[in-house]
């Protein structure tokens, strides 16, 4: 009996000491915290780098004795090396991560990411994001998005749109199209004038995905999107949507709507051609908006959504994730929290981003207001359709070469859809 009492007393003692020590940490001044915070992101010279750079400075001011080790990575580097890095011991404490099954989902299902569900509830991130943005933050134990624990936190939205050169439109007497037929008429007008209407960075690869999938979405509905992304139900690659998308893409390539040399042009060069006024339109995402704001100085420009449809590539933005092996998770949460707050979010808006928690009354730039207005219109009609490479890990390695072949006309739309269906179905089978 005495022995039992002693053990109980000891346990109570240990608990009390634990509570006391915890309270010490909680009550300690932030300026007393000593340590290191390793942050990795993939953004440079855009709205996100501006916002997160601002948050980093806030963090440094708040934690003067914490060393912030910031490293800039490239998107391609993280896509290819992400898994190796996350399973090594050299992980950062907080990291920007592409969303979707193929990346965040795969990492989460393999236990490489920290479950942020409790933290997101406690700190109010879940409320800030709302349910629609959480779709790409939650992954089940198979790594499929939409349900399960919250493994990432996003603080912006993104979508794919058409950037257009207003001066060139005026010069060639064309207006912003409101239907697919009108859009094609605009393209025809430029082709006749010897100008490639749409910039496309085919050498980089993934920009082709975006151009093609925007066309698939003309005939897609929410069920197809969900089935495709969540690897459930029936996805008919020879059905209406995929057939239409592949045929239209091949047709646009043949008609010269994209620069015929586009497969030898990198993403940066394609954007450069638009900035220099060599092409009147550029189909890319809102992540490029900040570059357009600062880069285009010689003419007036605007944006529109590819007309005549209701679904567009887009989603909540990339995620902040905390690697399972991170050494300073509490500091990582503190940093993420700063990026979610109004101050950093307003910086993002002013730099041309689509923040989810900004004070939009403080925005004056008409371009930025326009961007946020268009995004809101998509969200309101439930029009975010995600991206085509998400369902299967490494799917871009199938989509890109196949699209390059479709562009070159060496495969038919039917062959193309067949080629991309095989790895998709193989992966779907492997999950059973």
């Amino acid at each position: 009996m005495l022995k039992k009492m002693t053990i109980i007393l000891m346990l109570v003692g240990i608990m009390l000491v634990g509570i006391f020590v915890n309270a010490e940490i909680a009550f300690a001044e932030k300026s007393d915290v000593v340590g290191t915070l390793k942050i990795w992101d993939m953004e440079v010279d855009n709205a996100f780098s501006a916002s997160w750079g601002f948050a980093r400075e806030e963090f440094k001011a708040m934690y003067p004795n914490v060393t912030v080790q910031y490293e800039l990575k490239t998107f391609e580097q993280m896509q290819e090396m992400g898994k190796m890095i996350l399973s090594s011991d050299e992980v950062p404490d907080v990291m920007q991560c592409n969303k979707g099954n193929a990346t965040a989902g795969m990492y989460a299902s393999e236990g490489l990411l920290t479950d942020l569900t409790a933290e997101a509830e406690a700190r109010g991130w879940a409320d800030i994001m709302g349910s629609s943005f959480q779709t790409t933050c939650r992954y089940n134990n198979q790594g499929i998005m939409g349900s399960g624990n919250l493994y990432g936190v996003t603080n912006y939205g993104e979508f794919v749109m058409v950037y257009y050169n207003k001066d060139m439109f005026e010069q060639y007497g064309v207006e912003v199209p409101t239907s697919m037929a009108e859009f094609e008429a605009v393209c025809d007008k430029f082709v006749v004038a010897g100008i490639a209407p749409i910039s496309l960075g085919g050498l980089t690869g993934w920009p082709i995905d975006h151009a093609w999938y925007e066309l698939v979405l003309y005939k897609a509905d929410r069920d197809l999107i969900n089935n495709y992304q969540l690897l459930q139900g029936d996805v008919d690659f020879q059905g209406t949507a995929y057939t239409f998308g592949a045929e239209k893409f091949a047709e646009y390539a043949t008609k010269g709507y994209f620069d015929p040399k586009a497969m030898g042009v990198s993403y940066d060069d394609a954007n450069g051609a638009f900035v220099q006024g060599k092409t009147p339109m550029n189909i890319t995402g809102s992540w490029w908006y900040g570059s357009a704001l600062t880069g285009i100085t010689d003419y007036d420009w605007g944006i529109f959504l590819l007309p005549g449809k209701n679904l567009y590539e887009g989603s909540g933005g990339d995620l902040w994730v905390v690697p399972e092996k991170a050494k300073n998770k509490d500091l990582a949460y503190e940093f993420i929290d700063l990026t979610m707050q109004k101050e950093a979010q307003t910086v993002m808006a002013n730099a041309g981003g689509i923040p989810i928690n900004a004070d939009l009354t403080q925005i004056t730039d008409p371009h930025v207001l326009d961007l946020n207005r268009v995004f809101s219109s998509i969200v309101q009609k439930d029009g975010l359709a995600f991206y085509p490479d998400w369902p299967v890990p490494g799917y871009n390695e199938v989509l890109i070469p196949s699209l390059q072949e479709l562009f070159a006309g060496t495969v038919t739309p039917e062959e193309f859809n067949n080629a991309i269906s095989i790895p998709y179905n193989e992966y779907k089978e492997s999950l059973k």
Partner: protein
Amino acid sequence: MTHKDYSHNTKIATLKASSSLNKGYMVFLIPGVLLFLLIIVFPLLANIGLSFTKWSGVGTPVWVGFTNYMKAIRDSYFLTSFKNALLLVITVTTIPTLIGLLLAGFIFEYILDKFGRGIAIFFRVGFYLPQIVPIVVVGIVWRWMLQPNWGVLNWSLKAVGLDTLTRSWLGDTSTALPSIMMMMIWFQIGYPLVIFIAALQRIDPVVYDAADLDGASRLQRYFYITIPLIRPEIFVVVLTTIIYTLKTFAQVYVTTKGGPGRATIVPSYFSYQNFFIRSRVGYGATITTVLTIIIGLVAIGFIRMQIKQEQEG
């Protein structure tokens, strides 16, 4: 007992004596052997082992036997990658070696005689220069040069009125692989050149004097004396270039990533794609294993041929 037997026994005795004497040296082999095991043998065995599994890179690999190999044989990407590698081997081995032979002869026989050592060194260094540039830099610079809209190649063609010849060099399925070949040839020329010039310096001038006395022309001297005498160097250059070309990775990674379509896919890059990007580690390991076997066979074949040649010579 014949003289031959005696000499044989003496040899064995000497070997035995020397082996016991030399045992102390074994210690010095340990670091090398350890590194060899760690860097070559262990990863090689691990790779072969992985090729019989299905593994995403995390978790436990699942043994699948020869499934990956069976899949590879039917995979058109796999076959295309080796077809492209073969084309690269043919062009990138023969063309620089031939150019290297001619240039080495030209510099050694003509430039050195007419213009002296300084100019000869200038040319040798000049041709070798690409070899010291990191391959990633080479790739990026060539990508600029081949850029379809403002690259220097198309720009030059337009400047001389050859607009019809302009291409999207890296973006066109018919020109992408030849473009990478051009880049690799340009990069490679300096290597055989330097080896061959060194080989030429090794040849005894007496042989040439004798040829001159017999009235041989420069060309005859070159084809009947020089080339046969530097055959060992030619073997080394061809073998190392074949291996280098079979392992082509960075050149494709920096420029086309295997595209457009599958026009420039090569085994190393295809393996990398599967290994790292598509999380199909077992399949990636299969491709590398096949590549290793092929490189091994080529190396063994060449070394055997070389030994045979030496014995005949």
